[in-house]
């Protein structure tokens, strides 16, 4: 990423270790920050991204909780309302179903309902995404559920650099922030500077500049979009790729600015297409840049079905560079 290069950092880390570093920086910086979740202490999370933190910070900063997502989120809400800055871990995003009242009706609304008297500096990390053969209940991308809730911020790191910087930004924010991680990106390598730094929440990242086509891609789909952009550019479509980074708040201005330049745009996400965040982005584009559009806004997302287990089916189900290029060709009449 441009910022990392600017930082002159040569050091590369996998996404999973960038998460660890982000959380570690928060624990060093904030005395009243702690981590709570299932299997986070002894095992360092089922994906290992808290590895070593129990040894470094001790059992009063890293809590293995009982298996109750409702309890974990409730703990986070209660603790943050009294001044702590907890990092709570929801092992899989699918488990939102087990704690949705605490998320939707408590965490999101408490500041508003308390007349502004309650501040919830709460960070929630959760793991999303298909592609690992984990089937219908461990593979979903449910960003749309939480972006629909006024009071929450939602960010989605796509690179190791973003993962660390977004966790730090989320933990420093005085609002509840949900950091939506991606399980297929855990091994992804990338530059990660030493020490603390922030990725500003609410600002999109133009990852690849281009002149006559824009792809807005969230989460892991960023990497599929970048592959698709290379193929499209070979076909003469100089493609710009934007990573919104933050879904709530959403940086409409950066997207609109791009569309005003390229006049054609596609929105890509891994979630089910119907009612996905892409529908909102497409609507905002046509509201703010209708006169600049030379083609309808295209959307790529998963089909309207639960995520299947079989890799043979899952590979058809999950959007890819191939499906992005195919949809772009259709949109552009190529």
């Amino acid at each position, binding site marked *: 990423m441009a910022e990392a290069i600017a930082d002159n950092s040569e050091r590369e880390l996998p996404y999973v270790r960038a998460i660890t570093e982000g959380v570690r920086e928060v624990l060093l910086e904030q005395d009243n920050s702690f981590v709570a979740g299932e299997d986070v202490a002894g095992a360092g999370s089922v994906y290992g991204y808290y590895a070593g933190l129990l040894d470094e910070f001790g059992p*009063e900063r890293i809590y293995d909780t009982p298996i109750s997502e409702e309890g974990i989120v409730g703990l986070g809400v209660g603790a943050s*309302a*009294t*001044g702590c800055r907890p990092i709570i871990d929801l092992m899989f995003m699918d488990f939102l179903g087990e704690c949705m009242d605490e998320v939707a009706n408590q965490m999101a609304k408490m500041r508003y309902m308390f007349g502004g008297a309650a501040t919830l500096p709460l960070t929630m990390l959760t793991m999303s995404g298909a592609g690992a053969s*984990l089937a219908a209940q461990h593979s979903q991308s449910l960003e749309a559920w939480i972006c629909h809730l006024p009071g929450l911020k939602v960010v989605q790191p796509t690179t190791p650099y973003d993962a660390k910087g977004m966790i730090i930004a989320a933990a420093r924010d005085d609002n509840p922030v949900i950091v939506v991680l991606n399980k297929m990106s855990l091994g992804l390598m990338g530059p990660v500077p030493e020490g603390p730094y922030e990725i500003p929440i609410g600002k999109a990242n133009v990852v690849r500049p281009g002149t006559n086509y824009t792809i807005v891609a969230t989460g892991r789909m960023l990497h599929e979009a970048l592959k698709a952009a290379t193929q499209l550019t070979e076909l003469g479509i100089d493609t710009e790729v934007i990573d919104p980074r933050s879904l709530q708040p959403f940086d409409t201005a950066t997207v609109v600015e791009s569309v005003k330049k390229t006049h054609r745009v596609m929105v890509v996400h891994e979630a089910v297409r119907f009612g996905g965040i892409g529908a909102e982005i497409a609507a905002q584009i046509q509201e703010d840049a209708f006169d600049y559009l030379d083609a309808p806004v295209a959307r790529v997302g998963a089909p*309207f*079905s639960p995520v299947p287990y*079989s890799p043979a089916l899952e590979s058809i189900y999950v959007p890819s560079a191939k499906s992005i290029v195919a949809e772009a060709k259709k949109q552009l009449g190529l």
Partner: protein
Amino acid sequence: MSGTDLDALPDGGKHADAERPGVTEESRWGKSATGASIKGANALSLHVPEPVGRPGDEPNFSHVALSAAGEVSRPAVDAYAGDIKAHATSLVRVLSDDHEAVGEWAGATSLALCVQGLRAMMKVRAYDERMLIAQRQGKTSFYIQCTGEEAISCGQRLALERGDMCFPTYRQQGLLLAQDYPLLDMICQVFSNSRDKLRGRQLPVMYSAKDYGFFSISGNLGTQFVQAVGWAMASAIDGNNRIASGWIGEGSTAESDFHSALVFASVYRPPVILNVVNNQWAISSFQGVAGGASATFAERAHGYGIASLRVDGNDFLAVHAASKWAERRARSNLGPTLIEWVTYRAAGHSTSDDPGKYRPKGDAEAWPLGDPIDRLKNYLIKQDRWSEAQHEQTWTALQEEVRAATREAETYGTLNEGPKPSALEMFEGVYEEMPEHLLRQRQKLGV
């Protein structure tokens, strides 16, 4: 708070913090709450449960409360829950250390049924061993063994009747194998191949077999427990005589689903057995993280007025006798029973887990309740109904049966090789009938 008597302060201490130097309204509510941290003689602290042993330590199970075989009484089937509270802290055991069936719970299980149970448990173990190998060979991505816990599902299944419905978690393959459910069907599901009855949709081991009273398994924990209660209520509403059996791990009793299930079971007294399998570990969290150090899981039932038993889960005779007791209660309209099965998860949580990272080496071998297959085998040998030679022969035959079924399943494909589930059927089952927009999306995907 620092231990100040807030009631003694004007306005009940509402502004107590604000009166302390360095503590502002802002820090009370969290802008920079670090300044509000008070560490002193009267500071509060949390109890953070820690397991008795971690890797590098010697196995230690001195905290597990045991009773001697035969020590615990067998109450009448219509016993009032409040009169048998002691059964939630003692441990029902039948098989003694010298391989005899002793006490009031003995005699409920015929020798023929014991032989049937032993074969079922051995089949489960042979199946688990073969599927673990298959996972290592890449024929599936994931497998969950139930090593050491075979007696619980096999023993209870043999106490139930056809038409009863179990709502299992992922370590009750014995519920199927004790009924001789076709191995081929199970393996094809695990391999997610072209003959998989669930058509490649579900995680391996998440079988579903309505005809065999095996509901299905949820990846999000605890949900089946309330469903079991709901099913049992429906059975009573329909006025038939079928009962339900819900299953949950001790770790998942933390989920609110467990508590909702107990409330509904308490209020409506439906015909349900509420099984809590306490195998000591929920992935990396020991049972103390689920509150097991404060009270037994069987005692959870008392607050709801539900009868409960705490039973040796590695003792086939105790499992069968206690299950039969609860089954009789349920079918006689005497309401729900909660049973805590005390056992040990001898293997990892799943093939994605390495228990060497969080528990002492040799724990499984040191488990004081032994191995359920060995214990039943030794009992049957002592009763002259079994022999070492028969055991060896049966084990070899079962291994061969599982191997043959595996070979046959492979002809229908494995996870990454051979025929696959049909993509054409991928969107079937989302709704009862495929709606127009799903038909269109299938056409669009070109499958």
